[in-house]
């Protein structure tokens, strides 16, 4: 009852602020006048009367403060008042305000942008039903370093029947797909799925339906298309359902449209065809396998069970294949591997460090300002402001600054997000999902509040420590900074340097890794080479037709001006390595073993075009035709593995086990190892057979070595040349080889350049921080320095004293930072390549750089200190 009336009264007070304030003034004035009159009547003179009246009334401002607090809701009223006051004070010192806002906004913006990447790539669950139950199942053979091997349908059937932990398993993979349209044939991204894949993932077509088991069993010519393909080719029309696409020469009916952004394990295909989910014989075809765990099972249990299954199955396999295991990897972990995860967390940590440094610097600035404002605070205290009120005032200023920065920072972040989506590494999974959602904005808000609290609280604490003496004795004279303020600011500078060195060492190690990675010989020379993909039309079903086509294409291209060499290979870059049983003839007998292996068809001039050196024997020649005995060129890794210590030229091997019908190949040459999975992956055994002996019915990579620095400029002429030979042979994916090879380094480049950027910012901020502190300390110690000089100190001594002060701080930070960097190096060692996390060169260079920056930052103010005139300094008061 009572609180309700008070509440109502205070609510009114909120709106009648002005009138009530005026009335209070009037009431108080009336009171004082009456008192003075009475005092005069009692015989005092007018001065005495006034003084006595004021005295008996007591603290006027403090009373008004209490009165205002009671008049309405104290918090609303005083916060509004604090805000008005904060805006006024911040506008009065635009230099400080703009610096603080700029620094904080940048830090918050960078943080928010990077957090949005973390959010999309790491935190947001995958777009499937209960994604935490999904797992990739891999065939592995650790003796081959094969970890993520595809599996045969027969194997999957065994796994399914022998395990209890899985509700179901589904299979999928890419399938080379040609689309015949009105203007010729083109290659599109095609894939195949078992009919249970969509139900297993909990994904439903947005239109139409998925495959039934029978349809898949009979391999009926039906397809699902991606949302993107639907929009691009059918304009999103419902007529797409039931329409027919001619794929690989066969008409296929569209029965469903997949949801936008549907992909599975980074496979994002335009058309999907069905394949049966089981097979009774163990065929050569292998697939990716995804499984759904039963709800209560843990990944450890599943792995234990599948390892037991693998051991049982091994007993039924040929001897050469008995090293196989099954590994179960959570789908989320496969989508974003441990290395990308680590890299992203490190990046997040880095940008948060930058934020901390920025906040520390702005806090330091606001501390310096708080010393200068000591007089203002003392006056406010004398007028009756309580300590709590002053703390709140300072906090309000901090939070206001941070709020403005947070707002600008979020705008910057939205620009940053767009930049990351446009220029981020294409092989970063889920890049297209990066955006500013509520969680990201929540993060921006959280760090803004954190910054606001830090930079409001620090001066508040320092102010309280100074004890707000109302006599204004500290505020009245210039002071040497206030001990508490100085201590906090020194701590902040030490922290700045410690964080900066951690980041710099991290960046240094990554730069060293980058140099190392770039110095690796990939086994070919990618500069000035143009790559294009070429498909034989589906009608070329006889191998001789294809051989003829490739010969004619190469011939025509060689005739184009500025072309030095041209060659063909099935696929230069290897996305997933497979394994293969290989039987090898050696001096001491015939050996079969299962190898991580790749085999490709190449044209005679391929190695010349790409620039891979021949180590032994010869390249293919015209003589290696379809009717000649089969020959092969192997890479150095295979030579070392299969014929260790012997010359393999002239030796024979065949694919498959000892008793297979495959023909024996004779090794005619050994070429240098090519890094066909990017510079960071070790090469493994590979063989190359002559394109003339086995032209495959799929698309081929065409390599053209030119004498032009800009091979892309020749794309049109080359395309036209191919078209002249065969207008139904589609050409696509034209790109310089250097650019294709560069995509393997995109993620490393992304993280290295971001870390370099952030650590330079950190270093600059640390430098500005120490410069500000030293500069300020000199200004407040002018008098002391003056006295020192007056009693005979040399200018040099003063210089050394100031420099020493700065160096002491930066060296303390350096020590702390080096410890942190050692720890960080260990934690992030898997991101490094060819450099140890304790690389002495990096640590020494970074330490020297930091000391140099610290000395430079201290030198300017120290030089100024030397120029202080003792007389002027002493008179300054």
């Amino acid at each position, binding site marked *: 009852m*009572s609180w309700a*009336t*008070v509440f109502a*009264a*205070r609510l009114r007070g909120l709106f009648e602020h002005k009138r009530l304030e005026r*009335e*209070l003034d*009037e*009431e*108080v004035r*009336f*009171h004082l*006048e*009456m*008192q003075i009159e*009475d005092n005069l009547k009692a015989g005092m003179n007018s001065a005495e009367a006034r003084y006595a009246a004021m005295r*008996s*009334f*007591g*603290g*006027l401002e*403090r*009373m008004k403060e*209490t*009165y205002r607090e*009671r*008049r309405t809701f104290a918090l609303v009223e005083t916060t509004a008042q604090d805000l008005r006051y904060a805006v006024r004070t911040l506008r009065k010192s635009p230099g400080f305000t703009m610096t603080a806002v700029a620094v904080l906004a940048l830090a918050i913006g960078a943080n928010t942008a990077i957090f949005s990447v973390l959010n999309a790539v790491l935190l947001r669950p995958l777009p499937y039903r209960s994604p935490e139950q999904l797992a990739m199942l891999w065939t592995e053979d650790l003796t081959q370093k094969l970890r993520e091997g595809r599996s045969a349908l027969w194997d999957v059937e065994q796994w399914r029947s022998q395990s209890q932990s899985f509700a179901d398993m589904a299979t999928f993979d890419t399938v080379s797909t040609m689309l015949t349209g009105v203007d010729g044939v083109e290659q599109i991204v095609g894939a195949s799925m078992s009919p249970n894949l969509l139900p297993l993932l909990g994904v439903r077509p947005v239109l139409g339906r998925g495959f039934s088991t029978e349809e898949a069993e009979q391999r009926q010519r039906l397809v699902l298309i991606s949302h993107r393909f639907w929009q691009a080719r059918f304009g999103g029309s419902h007529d797409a359902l039931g329409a027919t696409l001619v794929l690989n020469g066969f008409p296929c009916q569209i029965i469903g449209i997949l949801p936008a952004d549907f992909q599975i394990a980074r496979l994002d295909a335009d058309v999907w065809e069905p394949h049966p989910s089981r097979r009774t014989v163990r065929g050569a075809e292998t697939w990716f396998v995804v499984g759904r765990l039963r709800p209560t099972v843990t990944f450890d249990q599943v792995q234990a069970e599948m390892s037991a299954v693998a051991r049982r199955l091994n007993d039924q396999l040929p001897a050469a294949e008995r090293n196989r295991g099954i590994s179960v990897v959570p789908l989320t972990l496969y989508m974003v591997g441990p290395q990308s995860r680590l890299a992203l967390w490190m990046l997040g940590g880095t940008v948060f460090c930058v934020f901390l440094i920025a906040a520390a610097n702005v806090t330091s600035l606001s501390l310096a300002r708080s010393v200068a404002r000591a007089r203002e605070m003392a006056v406010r205290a004398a007028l009756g402001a309580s300590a709590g009120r002053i703390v709140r005032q300072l906090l309000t200023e901090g939070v206001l600054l941070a709020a403005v920065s947070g707002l600008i920072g979020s705008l910057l972040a939205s620009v940053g997000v767009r930049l990351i989506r446009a220029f981020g590494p294409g092989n970063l999974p889920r890049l297209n999902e990066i955006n500013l959602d509520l969680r990201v904005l929540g993060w921006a808000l959280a760090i803004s509040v954190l910054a606001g609290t830090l930079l409001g609280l620090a001066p508040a604490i320092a102010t309280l420590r100074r004890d707000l003496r109302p006599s204004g004795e500290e505020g009245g004279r210039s002071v040497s900074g206030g001990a508490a303020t100085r201590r906090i600011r020194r701590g902040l500078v030490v922290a700045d340097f410690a964080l900066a060195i951690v980041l710099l060492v991290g960046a240094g190690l990554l730069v060293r890794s980058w140099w190392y990675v770039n110095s690796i010989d990939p086994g070919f020379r990618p500069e000035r080479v143009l790559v294009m993909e070429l498909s034989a039309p589906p009608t070329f079903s006889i191998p001789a037709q294809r051989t003829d086509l490739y010969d004619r294409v190469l011939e025509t291209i060689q005739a184009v001006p500025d072309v030095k060499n041209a060659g063909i290979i099935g696929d230069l870059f290897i996305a997933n390595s497979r394994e293969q049983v290989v039987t090898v003839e050696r001096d001491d007998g015939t050996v079969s073993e299962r190898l991580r292996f790749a085999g490709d068809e190449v044209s005679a001039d391929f190695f010349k075009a790409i620039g891979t050196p021949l180590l032994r024997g010869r390249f293919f020649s015209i003589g290696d035709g379809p009717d000649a005995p089969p020959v092969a060129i192997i890479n150095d890794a295979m030579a070392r593995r299969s014929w260790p210590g012997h010359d393999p030229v002239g030796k024979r091997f065949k694919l498959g086990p000892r008793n297979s019908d495959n023909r024996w190949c004779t090794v005619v040459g050994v070429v240098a190892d090519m890094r066909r999975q990017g510079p960071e992956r070790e090469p493994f055994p590979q063989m190359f057979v002559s394109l003339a002996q086995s032209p495959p019915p799929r698309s081929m990579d065409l390599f053209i070595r030119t004498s032009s620095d800009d091979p892309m400029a020749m794309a049109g002429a080359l395309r036209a040349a191919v078209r002249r030979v065969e207008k139904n042979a589609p050409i696509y994916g034209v790109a310089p080889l250097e650019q294709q090879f560069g995509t393997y380094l995109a993620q490393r480049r992304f993280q290295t350049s971001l870390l370099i950027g952030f650590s330079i910012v950190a270093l600059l901020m640390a430098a500005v921080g120490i410069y500000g502190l030293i500069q300020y300390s000199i200004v407040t110690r002018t008098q002391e320095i003056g006295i020192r000089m007056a009693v005979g100190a040399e200018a040099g001594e003063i210089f050394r004293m100031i420099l020493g002060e700065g160096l002491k701080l930066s060296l303390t930070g350096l020590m702390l930072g080096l410890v942190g960097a050692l720890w960080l190096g260990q934690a992030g060692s898997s991101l490094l390549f060819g450099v140890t996390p304790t690389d002495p060169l990096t640590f020494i260079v970074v330490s020297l750089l930091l000391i140099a920056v610290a000395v430079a930052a201290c030198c300017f103010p120290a030089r100024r200190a030397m120029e202080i005139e003792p007389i002027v300094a002493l008179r300054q008061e």
Partner: protein
Amino acid sequence: MNNDRTDKADVLQGTLILLVLRTLEALGPLHGYGIARRIEQISKDVLQLNQGTLYPALLRMEQEGWISSKWGASAKNRRAKFYSITAAGRRRLAKETEDWRRMSSTIERFLDFDPRSLTEERG
């Protein structure tokens, strides 16, 4: 500010409400200065009222509905805000008075209390 110590007693916050309500009940509508003067006069200047604290107290009592205020003309025909007690205020005064009496008689008893009267019970 109020560092100076005199032998006059400061008016406690809680009792101020009682004094104001009693004054208004006895003397009818008064302005702020009038209330302060009367309290000092009635207490024969023993109670030292920190006059400034009177106004926040008046505001609170008005918000509680114990008193009401109205702008009017003072004896010297100057504009002043007059306070008068309300019905709720009278009820409050009765309660406060009773509380105060009970409290002071209890304190009284403690002051007159003879320790020997308890020894037997302590045993």
